[in-house]
C-alpha cells in the first residue's frame, strides 16, 4: 500500500493539514488498508525536504511501533506490515499512480499505459494499492463509526451514519481564504459564500478554478451545480474540487489559461506527444494572443483566427490521446474557458484588448510584452510573471501547485471511482487579476505563520 503525501507540500494544503494535525488517523487508515488487501509493506511518500507533516508522521509511526501497532505481528494478531517513510521526487507528475511507482523504483517519473494497473503490477512488479491521506483518514473514521447505518438513508442503501467530510482549500478573491472542512455534497456556492465569506469588497465572483492546474473552471452561474466530493458533469469533466481559486471580474481568463498552461508545460514528463508538444503549443498560442499577435506575420486576421481555432482542436486531441491525466485534463481549463468565456478570447484575438480590464472595477493592465519576459513583482501589472520560462526559480509569490493527488480515489464511502491528477492542489494566481502580488499572502492574515512557511519553502526550492 502506498500513500502519497508528497502533494501535501505547499501546493496542496489539504493533505498537509491532515498529516500535520491528525497523522495517527492517516496511519490507522494505512494499516487498515494494508490488512484489507493483505499487504506486508506500506510506504508513505513524503516531500524530500523536511516538513512538519513528515516530522509528525515520523513521530506517529514511532509511537505506533512502540505500542506494536505497526511492524511485525501487530498486537499478536499474526498480521504484520512494515511501514516506511520514503522521500518523493517533488514532481507534479509523481502524483500519477504509475509515475509515482516509477520514481520510487528510481526510474524516470513518467507514467505508463494501464493495464496492467498498479493493483495488478505495481511497485517493483508487486501489486500495489495507492491512496491519498484523505482516503485513508476516512477509512479510519469509518471503522470508528463501526458500521452504524444512517437512519435517514433509504432501506438497503447501506449508507453509514454520518456524512463524510472533505477538506477544501479556498484562495483567491474571497474575504476569508483558507482551509475548510465541509460535508460532502456541499455546493461550491455555499463553500464560497458561507465558509469563505464571499467575494472581496467591491468585486463580484466571475468563476472558480477548481482542482488545480489540470482541473476545471466553474462559471458563477454553475456554482450551485458543482458540489464538493461528488462527480460532476461527464466523466471527462469531473472536478477534483479540493482546491478552489476564486476569480473576480478583473481576472482575465486568457491570462489564467496561459498561467496554467505554462505550469503544465514545465511539469509534463515528455513521454507522449499530445502532452509534450500540446502544452507547449497552447502556451505559445496564448502568449501570442496576450501579446496581441505582435510578431511579424501574425497580424493577418485569418492567421489569428486559425491559431485560436487550433486551440480548441488541440485541447480535444490532448484529451483524447494523452497517456495520463496530466495531458488528458491539461486542456480542461482552457476548453471550459473557451466555452464559458469565449467573448474574452474573441476580444483578445480580434480587438487586441482585454475584457477583464474594462469590466473590473479597477482595470487590470496587460503587460505589453505579453509576459514573455516578465518583470517579476511589479504590483498592479497583469504581467504573468508567475512562472518564468523554464519553470525554474518560481516567484515566491506563487504557491506552486506541485503535488497532485496520488490517485484520487475519493473518500466517498459509497463510490469508488478512479480519479485524476491535479485534485487536492492549491494554487494562487498572482498574475490573475489586479493588485496581483500584494494580496497573495498578505491577504491571508488569518494564517500568517502558515503562509510564511509556505512562501519560504517555495523560494528555497
Amino acid at each position: 500500500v502506498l500513500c502519497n503525501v508528497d502533494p501535501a507540500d505547499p501546493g496542496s494544503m489539504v493533505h498537509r493539514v491532515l498529516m500535520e494535525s491528525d497523522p495517527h488517523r492517516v496511519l490507522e487508515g494505512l494499516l487498515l488498508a494494508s490488512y484489507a488487501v493483505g499487504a506486508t509493506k506500506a510506504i508513505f511518500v513524503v516531500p524530500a525536504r523536511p516538513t512538519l507533516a513528515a516530522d509528525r508522521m515520523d513521530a506517529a509511526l514511532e509511537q505506533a511501533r512502540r505500542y506494536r501497532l505497526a511492524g511485525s505481528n501487530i498486537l499478536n494478531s499474526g498480521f504484520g506490515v512494515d511501514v516506511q517513510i520514503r522521500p518523493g521526487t517533488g514532481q507534479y507528475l509523481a502524483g500519477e499512480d504509475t509515475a509515482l511507482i516509477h520514481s520510487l523504483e528510481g526510474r524516470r517519473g513518467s507514467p505508463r499505459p494501464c493495464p496492467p494497473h498498479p493493483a495488478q503490477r505495481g511497485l517493483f512488479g508487486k501489486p500495489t494499492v495507492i491512496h491519498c491521506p484523505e482516503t485513508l483518514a476516512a477509512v479510519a473514521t469509518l471503522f470508528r463509526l463501526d458500521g452504524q447505518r444512517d437512519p435517514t438513508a433509504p432501506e438497503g442503501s447501506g449508507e453509514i451514519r454520518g456524512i463524510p467530510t472533505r477538506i477544501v482549500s479556498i484562495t483567491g478573491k474571497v474575504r476569508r481564504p483558507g482551509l475548510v472542512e465541509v460535508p460532502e455534497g456541499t455546493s461550491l456556492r455555499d463553500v464560497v459564500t458561507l465558509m469563505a465569506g464571499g467575494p472581496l469588497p467591491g468585486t463580484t465572483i466571475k468563476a472558480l478554478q477548481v482542482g488545480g492546474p489540470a482541473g476545471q473552471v466553474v462559471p458563477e452561474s454553475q456554482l450551485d451545480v458543482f458540489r464538493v466530493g461528488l462527480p460532476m458533469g461527464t466523466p471527462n469533466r469531473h472536478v477534483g474540487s479540493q482546491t478552489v481559486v476564486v476569480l473576480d471580474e478583473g481576472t482575465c481568463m486568457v491570462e489564467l489559461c496561459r498561467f496554467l498552461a505554462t505550469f503544465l508545460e514545465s511539469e509534463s514528463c515528455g513521454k507522449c506527444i499530445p502532452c509534450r508538444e500540446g502544452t507547449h503549443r497552447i502556451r505559445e498560442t496564448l502568449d501570442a494572443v496576450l501579446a496581441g499577435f505582435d510578431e511579424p506575420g501574425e497580424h493577418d486576421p485569418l492567421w489569428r483566427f486559425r491559431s485560436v481555432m487550433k486551440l480548441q482542436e488541440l485541447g480535444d486531441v490532448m484529451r483524447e490521446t494523452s497517456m495520463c491525466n496530466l495531458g488528458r485534463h491539461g486542456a480542461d481549463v482552457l476548453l471550459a474557458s473557451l466555452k464559458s468565456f469565449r467573448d474574452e478570447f474573441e476580444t483578445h484575438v480580434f480587438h487586441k484588448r482585454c475584457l477583464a480590464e474594462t469590466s473590473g472595477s479597477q482595470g487590470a493592465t496587460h503587460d505589453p510584452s505579453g509576459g514573455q519576459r516578465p518583470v517579476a513583482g511589479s504590483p498592479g501589472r497583469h504581467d504573468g510573471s508567475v512562472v518564468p520560462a523554464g519553470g525554474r526559480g518560481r516567484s515566491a509569490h506563487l504557491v506552486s501547485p506541485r503535488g497532485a493527488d496520488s490517485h484520487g480515489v475519493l473518500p466517498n464511502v459509497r463510490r469508488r471511482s478512479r480519479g485524476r491528477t491535479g485534485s487536492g492542489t492549491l494554487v494562487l494566481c498572482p498574475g490573475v487579476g489586479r493588485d496581483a502580488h500584494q494580496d497573495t499572502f498578505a491577504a491571508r492574515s488569518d494564517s500568517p505563520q502558515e503562509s510564511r512557511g509556505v512562501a519560504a519553502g517555495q523560494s528555497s526550492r
Partner: protein
Amino acid sequence: MRIKTRSQRVLTARRNLVELLLASHPDDCMYCIRNRQCILLSLSSELGIHQRPYRSSRRERRWPDVSGAGLVRDPDKCVLCGKCVRICDERQSVTALELTRRGRNTRVATAFDKSIAVSRCVHCGQCALNCPTAALSEHSAVREVMEAVVNPTQAVIACVAPAVAVSLGEEFGQRTGADLGGKMVTALRLAGFDAVFDLAHAVDLAVIETATDLANRLQSGESRPLITSSCPASVLFLEQFFPDLLPSLSTCRSPQQIMGALVKRAWADSRGLDPERVTCVTVSSCTAGKLEAGRPEMRQQFRPDVDHVLTTREIAQLFRLCGLDPVRLDTGAFDQPFSGGSSAAAITAVSGGWTEAVLRTAHWLMTGSEPRDPRWRTVRGTAGLRESRVMLGNNEVGVAAVSGLGRVRVLMNEIRRGRSDLAFIEIMACEGGCVGGGGQPLSSTSEMTRSRARSLYRLDQEESVRFAHANQAAMDLVRKTREGMGGNWNRALFRTVYQQREVPL
C-alpha cells in the same frame, strides 16, 4: 469489442499529433540522410498535412554528433519515440542511450550527454535500424569510398560479406531474401572497384582457426568455454562489460580484419603493390565493423587493414549514385585469389551458423572424417539462445549460439558465476545474426531476418563445398601460415588481442 481505426476522431487525432511533431522538427528534408525513407515524412504525406498550423519555432540547429565511428546521432531530428532507448536497454542491455530531462526539453542522450565515441555504445546499429527519422544513422563512408574509386592511383578492393548478398535486393525492389551475390560483383566492378573478393573466403579461414582452437581446447582439457570473436560489437561488449571473460574469447580476428590483413599485408606485397596505394573496402551488414576497422591493433604502421566499411544501405546508395541496378546485371565471379568460400561460410551470417560451420570442421579435425550430414539442426532456429550437446568424436560437447546482446549478457553472467558445461559459445550482437545486422535495409523486421536466413540455408543446401576445410585455397593458406612459409604470410594475419575498456557508467 469493435475498434474503429478510421473514424473522424482517430483521423483528427493522428493528424494533430503528426502536426505537433512536425512543428518541432527541422525543415531540412532535402538535406536529410533519411530523405525518401523517413517515416515522419511518409506519415505527414499520408495524413495530408500541407500547411503549417503552428509558428515554426526558430530553433537553432545543433550539429550532429559525428564522433562515433559507426553511428551518427542527430538529436534535432529526434521525435522522442524512444525506440532506440528501448532497444538499447531492453534488447541489447547496453543502455548507451537514455531519455533525459523532461517535458519539451526531453532528449535522448548518452551518459553525461557526452559524445557517442566516449559512451558505452558498442555500435551494433540496432537503434539506427529502427529509428523512424534521421536521429540515428550509420556513419556513411560512401563519399570516401567513391573518392578512392575514382582515384586512378588507388587500387580499390571490395570484400563482400554473405549477409549483404541476400539483403541488397530489398533496396532494389526484390523480395526479401533474394540472392544478389553474383550480380553485386558485376555492379561493384562497373562502379569502378579494381577487385572484388569474397569475404566468405576469410570466413573459412576464421572457421578453420576457431575449429582448431576448439579442438585444442577439448584435447587439453581446458575448462573455459571458447567464445567466438567474429562479431565486432560483441567483442566490444565483452571488453567493456565482461573483461574477466576475455581469456575465453577466441583470439581469431573477425573475417573482415583477416581479409584486410591478407589484402594489405600479404596480397598487395605478392602483387608488387604498395599497400599505401591499396584501399580495402568491406561491404557488410555491420555498423560495428566501421569501429573495428579503426582499432589500433587492426593497423600496421598507422595503416588500417580495412580502410572503409560500407553497410548494405550504403552500398545500395553507392549503386544508385553510379546509376546501377544490380538486379538487371549479369552474374559475375569473384576475383582470385580470394574468389570463393564454402557454404559453411555463407551460413555464418545467421545466428547459429558459426557454430555449425565450426562444428563441421572441428568434427573433421577431431575424427578425421566429415559427418555424413553436415547439418546440425539443434543449433539452428529462431530462438535467441540455442543450447545443445553434440558429439565430436568421442567427446560430448556443450555448444550455445546466442544472438542479441541482452541474451549474451544473461549467458555471460552465467559463465561468470561458474557455469562450465559449455565448451563453445557463439555470440552475435544483432538478433538473428548478421542477416539482422544494424546496417541492413531500414525497418527490417524479424520476419525479414528469418527470410534472409532461410535463403542462406538454401544456398548451403545447394552448394557442393559445404566445409570450410574443403575450401582448398583456404586450407593451403592456413598451411602456409602455420609453416611460416613465404614472407608476410604468417599467423599474425589471423590473430588479435583484447583489452579491458572503461566506459562511463
